[in-house]
């Protein structure tokens, strides 16, 4: 699975309340959540973001609540990958479970700038900043996690395995 997109940059401790404020949790419809993604720290993000774009952030991305609405909102915006120095534990699980690609890569998270165009091969974990020409290597996910992400989430992948959706 390969990724190509423009970078949106954020700092440390981006919490789930700013990714998707709780006032919008009276719905779980992805497109409604996407319309408010990041609005409390970056109001124009939902308008600026394009399909395939990449979020790059610092430490502890996704800290706070267990709301799966947070990775859902990011994914529904069209974001194809989040690169961070570290992720909060529950967000990490949730992102995989709903099929949002994420990679921990401290050096890439430090150096890649907003507006850079990056590409990434999830199978190898290689991230290339096409604007600067520099490449980085993140620990790739094992095949079973990649299958979950490619299937679009844990339950889709379970369904594919059991052949229930044939």
């Amino acid at each position, binding site marked *: 699975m390969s990724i190509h997109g423009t970078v949106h940059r954020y700092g440390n401790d981006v919490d789930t309340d700013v990714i998707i404020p709780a006032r919008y*949790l009276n719905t779980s419809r992805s497109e409604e959540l996407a319309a408010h993604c990041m609005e409390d720290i970056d109001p124009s993000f939902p308008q600026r973001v394009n399909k395939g774009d990449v979020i790059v952030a610092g430490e502890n991305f996704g800290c706070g609540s267990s709301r799966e609405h947070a990775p859902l909102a990011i994914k529904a915006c069209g974001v194809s990958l989040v690169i961070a120095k570290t992720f909060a534990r529950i967000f990490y699980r949730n992102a995989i479970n709903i099929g949002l690609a994420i990679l921990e890569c401290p050096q890439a998270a430090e150096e890649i700038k907003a507006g850079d165009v990056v590409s990434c091969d999830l199978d190898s974990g290689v991230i290339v900043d096409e604007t600067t020409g520099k490449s980085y290597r993140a620990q790739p996910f094992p095949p079973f996690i990649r299958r979950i992400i490619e299937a679009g989430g844990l339950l889709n992948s379970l369904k594919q395995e059991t052949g229930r959706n044939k």
Partner: protein
Amino acid sequence: MGMTMTQKILAAHAGLEHVEAGQLIEAQLDLVLANDITAPVAIREFERSGAASVCCPDKICLVMDHFTPNKDIKAACQVKATRDFARAQHISHFYDVGKMGIEHALLPEQGLVGAGDCVIGADSHTCTYGALGAFSTGVGSTDMAAGMITQKCWFKVPSAIRILLHGSLPCFVTGKDLILHLIGLIGVDGALYRSLEFTGDGVASLSMDDRFTVCNMAIEAGAKNGIFPVDEKTLDYLSGRFRREATIYQADTDAEYERTIEIDLSRLAPTVAFPHLPENTRTQWDEIPIQQAVIGSCTNGRLSDLRQAAEILSGREVHRDVRCIIIPATQQIYLDALKEGLIETFLHAGAVVSTPTCGPCLGGHMGILADGERCVSTTNRNFVGRMGHVSSEIYLASPYTAAASAVAGRLITAKEI
């Protein structure tokens, strides 16, 4: 190498003699929890999976506590969908308005969780039950859905940080001040992916309500879980309440900890987390006027929290520029507070008392902040926009500090009143 208390509970639920940090295991779950925000997403995933029925209806608990009593039409529809699902799947532990309370106060109170349990909940503060000597952790809705289908969950066995407690808390200093102090010390990712295991001679001095508050905010340091050893106070609490048999696990004497942090409880002071992170803790500050005080939540809405607030508010009045909102966490706590005269004390002081709800803590309803407003709150998060307008500010504190500040109209401790 020995195992930590958390590792022992996980090993037992995975049917293994021994586990070590980093190992991937699949554990049997004693309880799977969700609320009115997270259950609808889990139900959608459950239905997408093609599963016909849940694995163990008696081991699922659904609590309608966040946007209830329904704050708007969309919230009402989410609760309705969850209610319909609970009926169709014969889930008896479905708590609706009238029976419901804030989930992490309600489940221990109703005896649905206890020592030795392995619990997941689609709510980050599920880590609260570590106070009872259980392994419990927050997950997302998809994990919750998979848990309903299989009654199992995979975990990466966590390493641990040992928090060695000594002495006892001084007057007007509570479990809230202890956990805020610890988060200030290690930061909001200081325990990322790890267990926080509380131990030491200071544990015995902490009330169950203090322990619930401490474990509740383990997630605010990034922890997978927080956990206390089981002692007489725990067993007293569980007695006549817990519906299954308690299993007591103890950490091995040669258990491995990544680090040990010693805290002398007697040296702690009333502690406040300033905007916009729970790690921004202070024990001294300049003049900070406030417009709202909230006393409640899964962190601090229990009976002893209300007693502490009443101790301060008794014979005093809430400042004219402050709205003081008090929320008993469950119907039983509300009733006990009523019988003890606490509710009367609150009303005489000019506070309002709400039915149980998570409402204002996550900016849902029942006390939303306007631009530039400041709130001292006994809740657990002070992120940007958490309780309302993006320019509002939240100061996390104990019930003593929140009540004293409500009277003074500015951030002060109970010692100063």
